[in-house]
């Protein structure tokens, strides 16, 4: 819906020019607000993006298997980050909010979903899973202990340090699936480390997800027969 009347446009959630409101208009809006028929927003896009993520198939899948409310909430924020990822200012703002509320671990969980790592991780898990309960348990385990399963590489990290950190995590926690994630400028660094890590981690099989500005390494522990 579109209108040349700026007040009608505001009422339609559309923004046009600077609007001065009459006291009658303010009173009318307040009356509707108190009757729970009206809400004051900035723009519709924030609400629409959030609603879209809640309705998505991926979100519904996670809600079936993730019972921890905070972690489920963070997966939904990860989906929201994915949806808005071309808008750097908006992404940065949301990341800062996640960091404030849920600290680094919360940010890592949302990154994990944003970059499609969780859905690929689940794909790898499903190959060896025997029940839905086991799947639920393993999804929760990785998200609750994300730093024991994943190395998040930053653009400032040095390759030697990445390799050392990866080997330390693997030897300390012996994860079934270990992930090295490089997004943006970190993707180059992860690419550089890939071959060396593969040669050092002989108990693991490597699967790479490359593309755009992402380089994600999934090391799956070999099954001993």
């Amino acid at each position, binding site marked *: 819906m579109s209108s040349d009347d*700026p007040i009608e*446009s*505001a*009422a*339609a*959630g*559309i*923004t*046009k*020019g*600077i*609007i*001065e*409101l009459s*006291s009658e208009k*303010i*009173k009318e*809006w*307040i009356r*509707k*607000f108190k009757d*729970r*028929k*009206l*809400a*004051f*927003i*900035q*723009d*519709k896009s*924030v*609400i629409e*993006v*959030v*609603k879209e*993520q*809640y309705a998505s198939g991926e979100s519904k899948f996670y809600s079936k298997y993730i019972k921890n409310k905070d972690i489920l*909430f963070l997966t*939904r*924020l990860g989906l*929201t980050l994915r949806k*808005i990822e071309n808008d750097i200012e908006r992404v940065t*703002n*949301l990341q800062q*909010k*996640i960091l*404030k*509320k849920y600290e680094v671990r919360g940010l890592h969980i949302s990154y994990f979903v944003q970059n499609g790592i969780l859905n690929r991780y689940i794909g790898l898990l499903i190959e060896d899973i025997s029940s839905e309960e086991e799947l639920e348990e393993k999804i929760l385990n990785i998200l609750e202990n994300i730093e024991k399963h994943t190395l998040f590489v930053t653009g400032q990290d040095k390759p030697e340090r990445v390799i050392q950190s990866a080997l330390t995590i693997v030897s300390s926690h012996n994860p079934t699936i270990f992930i090295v994630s490089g997004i943006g400028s970190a993707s180059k660094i992860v690419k550089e480390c890939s071959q060396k890590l593969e040669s050092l981690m002989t108990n693991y099989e490597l699967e790479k997800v490359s593309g755009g500005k992402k380089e994600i390494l999934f090391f799956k522990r070999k099954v001993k027969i």
Partner: protein
Amino acid sequence: MELVSLKNVSMNSKILLLEELGYGSNGKFVLDSNGNKVLDRYLEIPVEVENMVILPGSEIVLDNNELSISKYIEEFGDVF
């Protein structure tokens, strides 16, 4: 639910709107009736007039961001 955008509403009109609801402003932040900064219910950050949303449910004044809106939807349901 009718959604009214405050994005291009003048600061003066927004302050009048807040006053009708029992709030105020120092020209930057939303203030409560005691003159204290109103904090976003979920993030506990002061809400700026230029970035406020006012939603039903005991007059919830929030910062306009995806985290707070998501939390609101989880608490009050999809009222939109």
